């Protein structure tokens, strides 16, 4: 009996070790590649330590009582031991302390997520302000990326300069999805009635896998995309490459993109301006019977500053 329990614990621990060492570079969340993900990573590691502590205490007491009192005729059997105020206060207070220890960094990281991360690189020449804004629209089952400052559009992949905070403004055309690039930072939903923002930043050049994490139907499993981080120079030359070598996005082509399907990555040297007007609203053709003033009291414009989530 007791042996089996010990074996189980040992087994679980060794499995953990194998997993941690064997494929740590596969564990995207534990392999942060930017300041946002790193902050979250530190929080996660801290919580893992605390939780292991809690689990260890429970396991130790558990194994102790089973070993000690699991025998047929233990001498210390005492049916009158049915309460102990002091002990109960102890195991009320210690969890309170643990919760405080978890809550403080949680709140710190939570509120810091509202600010853009610190830029760690020289801003590329082509855009001012040391941040880059990209409009993201999820469509069943693909990702559209629009660079309002560079006036280009890509599908299912996005290129960013390394070391520069990128403000992703998130929109949805139809179903709700969620924009998640685990190596760069946590996710946010994309919703039709509610544009939101997500700051991400990559430290190094690299290719990071992102995917939708909120189920949206048939093609959802294949709704992934790549984030390519490049040095400033490479980023600039990528922009000019797209500008000169890719086709323009026409309205016809755009409508085609709005159909529910999975598509290959694409890039367009420009996009029709009228797309931008309707960015923040659903555009379900023939389904909309009038314009909505959406939620009063909320600033829905997406980039006006006040009240933003990931400002």
């Amino acid at each position: 009996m007791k042996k089996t329990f010990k074996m189980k614990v040992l087994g679980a621990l060794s499995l953990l070790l194998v997993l941690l060492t064997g494929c740590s570079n596969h564990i995207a969340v534990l392999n942060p590649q930017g300041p946002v993900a790193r902050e979250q990573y530190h929080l996660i590691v801290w919580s893992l330590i605390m939780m292991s502590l809690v689990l260890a205490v429970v396991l130790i007491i558990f194994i102790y009582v089973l070993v000690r009192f699991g025998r047929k005729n233990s001498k210390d059997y005492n049916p009158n031991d049915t309460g102990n105020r002091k002990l109960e206060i102890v195991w009320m207070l210690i969890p309170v302390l643990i919760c405080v220890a978890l809550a403080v960094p949680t709140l710190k990281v939570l509120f810091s997520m509202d600010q853009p991360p610190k830029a760690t690189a020289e801003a590329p020449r082509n855009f001012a302000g040391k941040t880059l804004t990209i409009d993201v629209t999820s469509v069943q089952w693909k990702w559209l990326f629009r660079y309002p400052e560079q006036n280009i559009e890509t599908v299912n992949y996005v290129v960013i300069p390394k070391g520069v905070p990128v403000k992703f403004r998130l929109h949805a055309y139809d179903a709700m999805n969620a924009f998640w690039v685990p190596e760069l930072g946590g996710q946010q939903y994309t919703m039709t009635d509610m544009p939101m923002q997500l700051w991400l930043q990559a430290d190094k050049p690299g290719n990071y896998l992102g995917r939708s994490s909120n189920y949206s139907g048939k093609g959802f499993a294949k709704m992934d995309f790549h984030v390519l981080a490049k040095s400033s120079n490479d980023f600039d030359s990528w922009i000019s490459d797209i500008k000169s070598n890719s086709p323009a996005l026409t309205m016809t082509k755009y409508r085609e993109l709005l159909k529910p399907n999975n598509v290959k990555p694409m890039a367009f040297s420009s996009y029709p301006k009228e797309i931008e007007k309707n960015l923040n609203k659903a555009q379900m053709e023939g389904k909309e019977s009038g314009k909505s003033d959406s939620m009063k009291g909320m600033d829905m414009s997406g980039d006006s500053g006040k009240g933003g989530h990931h400002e």
Partner: protein
Amino acid sequence: MQEHKNTAVESEPAGFPWKQVIGLILSLALTFLALWIAVGLSLPVHVTLTLIVGLAVIQALIQLFMFMHVLEGTDTSHQILGLIFGIFVAFAMVAGTLWIMYFTL
């Protein structure tokens, strides 16, 4: 089964139903008062809202105590605790939802 002595309940005397009539008059008066505050006065919006919601709560209490006999029963703590929990959850629902849905972006 004619005579029932009420000890746990205040007895219902014969004669004019004062309690009910007062309840009616109060609720009508409060209704018109709320209407007047909302339409007749032009107070700042949040003041108006506070006042009329307050009046609605008073009216609800009138119904509860004057008509619904909430303090009756073999053990009234059941219904009172039930109502209090219900009010707590209802409040969490309305206030929470408004807080969440009006403070997002």
